[in-house]
């Protein structure tokens, strides 16, 4: 009986499709696997979608951090043995996210404070998504892919932000001053006045219900127009 070398055992545990065997996974399954994981990776970020301003601010950060992390990681990969790809990506993304936190505290103090733990959580999402990606793509392809993922996250957050703030508070762009500075105070739109608001929309379950509705709409459009999906 042979004891597997450390390298083999780590490769065997890898969730990276195609890493454990030489056979590429079936494309359809790969796509489903990837999008499910993306959806799961999005879930912890839903907490910052209760107002438009928070969603906008957070999306901007995601749009910067995600491609930057991909660039750094793909540049580094050539020096990384397989066994340390995961810890190295954790280190790099954690470093990037820490820098982003410092940046928020220095220049967008109040908005950054409202992100709480969810900004550091972005590091986990990046590592997960980076880890499931096929390794043998060029740097350009990886970059385009990460921009697309970041855009997807950003658009989802902003759409949810609009819906939840409108339903939950009857306003749009409340607290805009935390993102745009003092002139942002005039940006808030009071669509209708509510005493308590529709609470469910503001609470975390509201985020999941809104996301479910969003996915339902997407699926409905896709089912009406099967060729364009």
């Amino acid at each position, binding site marked *: 009986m042979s004891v597997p070398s450390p390298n083999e055992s780590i490769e065997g545990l890898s969730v990276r499709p195609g890493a454990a065997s030489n056979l590429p996974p079936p494309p359809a399954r790969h796509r489903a696997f990837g999008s499910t994981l993306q959806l799961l990776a999005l879930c912890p970020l839903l907490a910052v979608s209760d107002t438009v301003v928070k969603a906008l601010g957070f999306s901007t950060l995601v749009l910067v951090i995600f491609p930057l992390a991909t660039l750094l990681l793909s540049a580094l990969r050539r020096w990384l043995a397989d066994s340390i790809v995961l810890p190295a990506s954790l280190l790099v993304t954690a470093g990037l996210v820490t820098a982003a936190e410092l940046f928020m505290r*220095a220049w967008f103090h109040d908005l950054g404070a409202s992100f709480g733990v969810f900004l550091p959580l972005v590091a986990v999402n990046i590592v997960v998504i980076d880890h499931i990606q096929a390794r043998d793509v060029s740097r350009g392809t990886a970059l385009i892919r990460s921009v697309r993922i970041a855009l997807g996250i950003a658009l989802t957050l902003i759409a949810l932000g609009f819906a939840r703030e409108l339903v939950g508070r009857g306003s749009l762009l409340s607290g805009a001053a935390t993102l745009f500075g003092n002139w942002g105070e005039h940006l808030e739109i009071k669509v209708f006045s509510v005493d308590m608001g529709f609470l469910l929309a503001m609470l975390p379950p509201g985020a999941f219900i809104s996301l479910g509705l969003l996915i339902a709409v997407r699926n409905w459009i896709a089912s009406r127009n099967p060729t364009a999906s």
Partner: protein
Amino acid sequence: MATPADKRHIAAPTATLAIIAAVLTVGLVTFANLTRDRIARNQQVWIKQHLDALVPPKSYDNDPLVDITEVMAPDLLGAATPIIAYRMRKAGLPVAVALRPVAPDGYRGPIELLVAIAPGGQLLGVQVIRHNETPGLGDAFENRDAGWLGEFRGLSLTKPPQQRWTVRRDGGDFDAFTGATITPRAIVKAVRRTLEFYQGNEDRLYQDGKPQ
């Protein structure tokens, strides 16, 4: 028994990781140094806004953000860490002390307060400076019941008497918000305990580390 080949196999990746960690550390320390002053200033501005809402800046002539002291009283002030007290004086005479106690039993975690007290133990006011209460219910003091925190102004340990220093539901004098009892109960309790701490420590609060 590890062979020399195995050792190399471990040594090289370890060194790579160490280099990455070192580069990141240097980068982050540099960035942290660059932003430190700005972040400290932001926090001062933030606490000053809350302070100004409680004590009119014209009523004192020192800088309460510099004239601070730290006190420890986990039972009364709700935190196992030192609590900051900002001192306000006019011509060296005490005007007010603002403490930053914690209400540890909020509905969703601790509620950080700023409690300003005039000499003699009368409340100048209470501000909630950080909380995780349920949006729309427990955070009513921020919008729906915006006047609620204002009701503390002018109260003291004897007004109302101690057994009425709680929410109405518990037989006290304080209203709760619609749909939330735990949050107001926690805040009222924390304010009362802060007053109790103040009563036993008034002299110390003004004297400790007093700038000459």
